[in-house]
């Protein structure tokens, strides 16, 4: 249960939305936009992409490294506490000394962000859904959508489908096959288990599991090998954040195609475009930020090293920013 005692909000404005403050930051939304103010500047963002980014940040517990909502606003995860920043990773804001960053305990910033989602997401809008599968984020406040904004990231302890672990998806459990994956084979592997080995002889249709995902751009943990996590997800339209890596991350394209725009993590200057087709594998170095574009809903395997030591090792130059050299 989230502790909401630290959330600072005001009475709803003329559009029905509550303004929020967090340290020196003030957040307000109207019919179309979210307005952010801090002691040295201000920023305006369209409500839909802002809420989609906010949704990922909350559901992922601020994820690995930097979650840039856009080129100005974002969070930097220190795993226990979190920086909320404006212009921190924007070279021109820094040069102009308009950037601002404040550090908050994880639970405090999460509670405020969750309260913003609760208040600012209307009943027809699902920030995790693909554009053609949800209503509009815009307009005056009309209800709320608690089931959509309180989803948590699925994280298997060993492997999805094992006894006492995350369950498989089915029509019966509320996960129908997505409209873009109706041609994906749903047949399960043949598993013959000898008595006494029910917890260890296990397999499932990983592609069918993905075809039934009801969210986009939301990696969930499916199998765990010590700190190695397979985190597949389905992708459609645009990754709602620009993810700044604090460690190497790997992408394995399982179906269809994604185009990644890669920029320097600190400055935002373009570095590369990575076009990934089915079967392609590519690393995202630890000193970049990236945003993906998936024309058709696709399956991507995001592969993470969850070691708590990595960000420090890389930041201190004790581990490289690239996975291998050759």
């Amino acid at each position, binding site marked *: 249960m989230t502790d909401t005692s630290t959330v600072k909000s005001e009475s709803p404005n003329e559009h029905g939305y509550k303004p929020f403050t967090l340290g020196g930051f003030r957040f307000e939304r109207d019919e179309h936009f979210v307005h952010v103010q801090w002691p040295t500047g201000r920023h305006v963002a369209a409500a839909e992409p802002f809420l989609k980014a906010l949704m990922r940040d909350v559901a992922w517990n601020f994820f690995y490294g930097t979650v840039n909502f856009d080129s100005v606003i974002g969070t930097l995860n220190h795993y226990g506490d979190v920086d909320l920043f404006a212009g921190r990773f924007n070279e021109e804001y820094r040069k102009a000394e308009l950037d601002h960053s404040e550090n908050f305990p994880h639970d405090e910033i999460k509670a405020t962000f969750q309260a913003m989602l609760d208040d600012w997401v209307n009943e027809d809008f699902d920030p995790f859904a693909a554009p053609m599968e949800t209503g509009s984020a815009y307009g005056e406040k009309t209800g709320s959508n608690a089931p959509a904004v309180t989803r948590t990231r699925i994280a298997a302890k060993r492997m999805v489908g094992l006894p006492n672990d995350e369950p498989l998806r089915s029509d019966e459990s509320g996960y129908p096959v997505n409209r873009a994956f109706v041609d994906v084979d749903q047949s399960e*592997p043949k598993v013959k288990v000898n008595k006494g080995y029910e917890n260890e002889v296990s397999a499932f249709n990983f592609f069918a599991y993905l075809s039934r995902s009801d969210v986009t751009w939301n990696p969930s943990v499916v199998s765990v090998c010590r700190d190695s996590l397979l985190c597949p997800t389905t992708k459609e339209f645009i990754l709602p954040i620009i993810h700044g890596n604090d460690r190497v991350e790997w992408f394995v394209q399982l179906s269809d195609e994604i185009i990644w725009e890669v920029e320097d993590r600190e400055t935002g200057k373009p570095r590369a475009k990575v076009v990934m087709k089915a079967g392609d594998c590519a690393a995202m170095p630890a000193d970049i930020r990236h945003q993906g574009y998936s024309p058709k809903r696709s399956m991507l395997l995001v592969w993470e090293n969850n070691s708590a030591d990595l960000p420090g090792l890389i930041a201190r130059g004790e581990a490289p920013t690239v*996975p291998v050299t050759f």
Partner: protein
Amino acid sequence: MTKYKTVFASLDHFEKGGVEVINDDPKNYVFSNMFDVASRSKPWEKVAIARNQEYVLEAIRAEGTSSWRVTPHDEFALVVDGEVVIDLLDPDKTLVDPSSSGSISLAGEPAGKPMGTITAGRGHLALLPAGKCYRMSAQRPSVVVLQTIMGPETIERWSTICQKF
């Protein structure tokens, strides 16, 4: 209503994307394609296609029958092309140091109790449990991506498989 076609790739049909450089070295992205790698591998070679410190994803060309292997930690086998039969066996004695990394090949058939058999097709993910033995077989060339830790038989041939320019 749009009729979508999901595009998967295979040993027989894959199309590679690539890194289009603006201001970077393409080698930083360690870009390869698992089917391209498997198409140039010998059966059961464990070729790393992704590495993050000690952890790897290996592309394995499954063809014929593998040796028996034992793994000190859980591994996970994702079949991405063809069909692979996995036999699992609980050995009578400890065959691998549980603190070690990466599965190892065994000479001959280990003594132990059969645990079961998995027949996995494209898109199926199977657990290869810690401390246990497994053997894979495939009647036609197939491809497995293995989530594991670098071991003595992991092959790194990045300069051969990755985009350099």
